[in-house]
């Protein structure tokens, strides 16, 4: 049994103009100590997925269907009390902006002690000792001093280290990191990412890394999901997806990396932009931006504009694309005739 099993997760937002489906049919599993990446453009539903894992979707959002099983227990139907025991304790989360995540009026020590005391019956002294130990693990300079400092006295990199220390405080099984390095200086990004990876390996903690940086995903994670407009469009081992992307969108993302462009030329980009979730194109949501949509005769493939693609297995990956399905079918027919 996998540590975390998400199947057919469906999240909707009840808005004035009607229900918007922020996530549809998301499936994945996470084993103990495994690292999973979730990539996609802004608005693809990455952060919604992270929040719904802890059942913390804010109104007007709600989980409309599917299941999230943690150690075989269904988080979707768990009581608020039961969920509190999971949050922070077994599954913790790192947010994007370290400037905003720490409470400005409480000292670092107070925030760490509070988190420990919410889950364990220990004295403040013991809690401070644990907090200090975690601060040492994240290699922060002079950790004793930090406990009594306030967030505004620390730099962005240090704050993110403290947030990682808080995430590790209760030795969780899974850490969800929602773009943990986006708000940081480029030179510090690599440092923080390396630290996070090292700590996860050391403690055998599972990591769900949400990012739009494909380079980081390929270095850090073993498997990845590519999301587009609330759906997973490609998932499988990270290395295979990065080396041989099947879905036109994934191909576009990889092509858009700065290192893929020829020097002196413009960077590659995917034309158009992500559609609004309340007004999705028919069929495959990506078809208006897809470069492969026009066949030889210049007409779009009818299936692409009419039918939402199902997943097809391609090697170790699963891809939701009509074109890939067609190619695989062609290949299978050829092999049969041979």
């Amino acid at each position, binding site marked *: 049994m996998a540590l975390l099993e998400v199947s057919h997760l469906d999240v909707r937002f009840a808005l004035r103009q009607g229900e918007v489906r922020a996530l549809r049919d998301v499936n994945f599993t996470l084993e103990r100590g495994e690292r999973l990446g979730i990539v996609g453009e802004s608005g693809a539903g990455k952060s919604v997925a992270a929040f719904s894992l*802890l059942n*913390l979707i804010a*109104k007007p959002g709600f989980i409309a269907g599917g299941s999230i099983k943690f150690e075989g227990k269904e988080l979707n139907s768990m009581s608020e009390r039961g*969920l*509190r*025991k*999971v*949050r*922070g*304790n077994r599954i*913790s*989360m790192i*947010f*994007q*902006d370290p400037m*905003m*995540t*720490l*409470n*400005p*009026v*409480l000292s670092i020590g107070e925030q760490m002690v*509070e*988190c420990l005391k*919410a*889950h364990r019956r220990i004295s403040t*002294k013991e809690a*401070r*000792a644990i907090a*200090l*130990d975690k601060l040492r693990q994240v290699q922060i300079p002079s950790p*004793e*001093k930090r*406990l*009594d*400092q306030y967030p505004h006295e620390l730099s962005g990199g240090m704050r993110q280290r403290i*947030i990682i220390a*808080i995430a590790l405080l209760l030795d969780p099984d899974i850490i969800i990191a929602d773009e943990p390095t986006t708000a940081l200086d480029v030179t510090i990004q690599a440092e923080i990412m390396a630290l996070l990876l090292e700590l996860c390996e050391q403690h055998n903690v599972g990591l769900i890394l949400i990012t739009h940086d494909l380079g980081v995903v390929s270095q850090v994670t073993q498997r990845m999901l590519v999301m587009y407009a609330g759906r997973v469009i490609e998932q499988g081992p990270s290395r295979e997806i990065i080396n041989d992307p099947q879905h036109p969108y994934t191909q576009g993302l990889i092509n858009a990396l700065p290192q893929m462009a020829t020097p002196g030329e413009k960077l590659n980009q995917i034309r158009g932009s992500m559609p609004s979730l309340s007004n999705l194109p028919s069929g495959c949501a990506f078809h208006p931006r897809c470069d492969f949509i026009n066949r030889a005769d210049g007409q779009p493939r009818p299936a692409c504009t009419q039918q939402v693609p199902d997943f097809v297995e391609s090697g170790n990956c699963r891809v939701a694309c009509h074109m890939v399905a067609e190619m695989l079918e062609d290949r299978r027919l050829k092999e049969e005739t041979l």
Partner: protein
Amino acid sequence: MTTSTTSTAPSRWERLRDSFLWYSFKRDRTAQLCLAVFICLVIAAFSAPLLAPTDPYDLAQIDILASELPPFWIDGADEMYTLGTDAQGRDLLSIILYGTRVSLLIGFGAVALQALLGVTFGLMAGYLGGRVDAFLMRLADIQLSFSTLMVAIVVGAVVKATMGSAFYSQYAVLMLILIIGLAEWPQYARTVRASVLAEKNKEYVDAARVMGLRSRRIMFRHVLPNTLSPIFVISTVQIANAIISEAALSFLGLGMPETHPSLGSLIKAGFDYIQSGSWWITLIPGAVLVVLVLSINLLGDWLRDVMNPRLYKG
């Protein structure tokens, strides 16, 4: 073994000395003067039994023959009574000291009650939202649609009628605290709710929820400290308002009885004699009231400028 050392952490006093609050206070003459006046008045009022030459509550010390004596700078003054005497022959200085104590007690007590109710309700309304919010805020609207005076008159009249005025006089301080406290809590609730609405969407609240903390704990320990500056600022205004409300009620005869007068009831008591030339009985307590309220209001203005630079009216 891990032992935490806190020797490097600055003490509270050092923090205050380094803070912007202290810096701004050092440069603001008005604030210094107001704080000095306010502290003098508070100390004088609360040490009234030590400072006052006579005990105005002790009927045995009152000499009706010495009534309406003028203050020392006017002919016919008695050396014993620096600020003269009132219509009952009580020493005006003593009774003003005791009266200021009553006024301050009611002012602070009423504001404490307002803050307790208003902050709790405002926090709940803002953080929990939905029906709780709608219910509490409509309650606040209803409360605000009665004026303080109207509530006080109704409550005071009902209590006096049912329990008798002896009972009312005995518990007048508590009654006034209760009335003014209940009448003005929506001010707090609205201010707190507005800042909670702004605070609750910040990421540290999400982070606290992700940590698995209870709502109550997030509300009081994480959100509340972040809404303290507007609370401080309106507290000063509310203390001044509460003192004035009390004075107004006493002036209307619904406040402190004449045996245990507040500044308001002193003004009222003296008002009857203003025509007969004994102006000091009403004007001197009036001046004390004005100075007290003015110093609190000016301190509040200064505090607002320091705590919310955006509001600065330059």
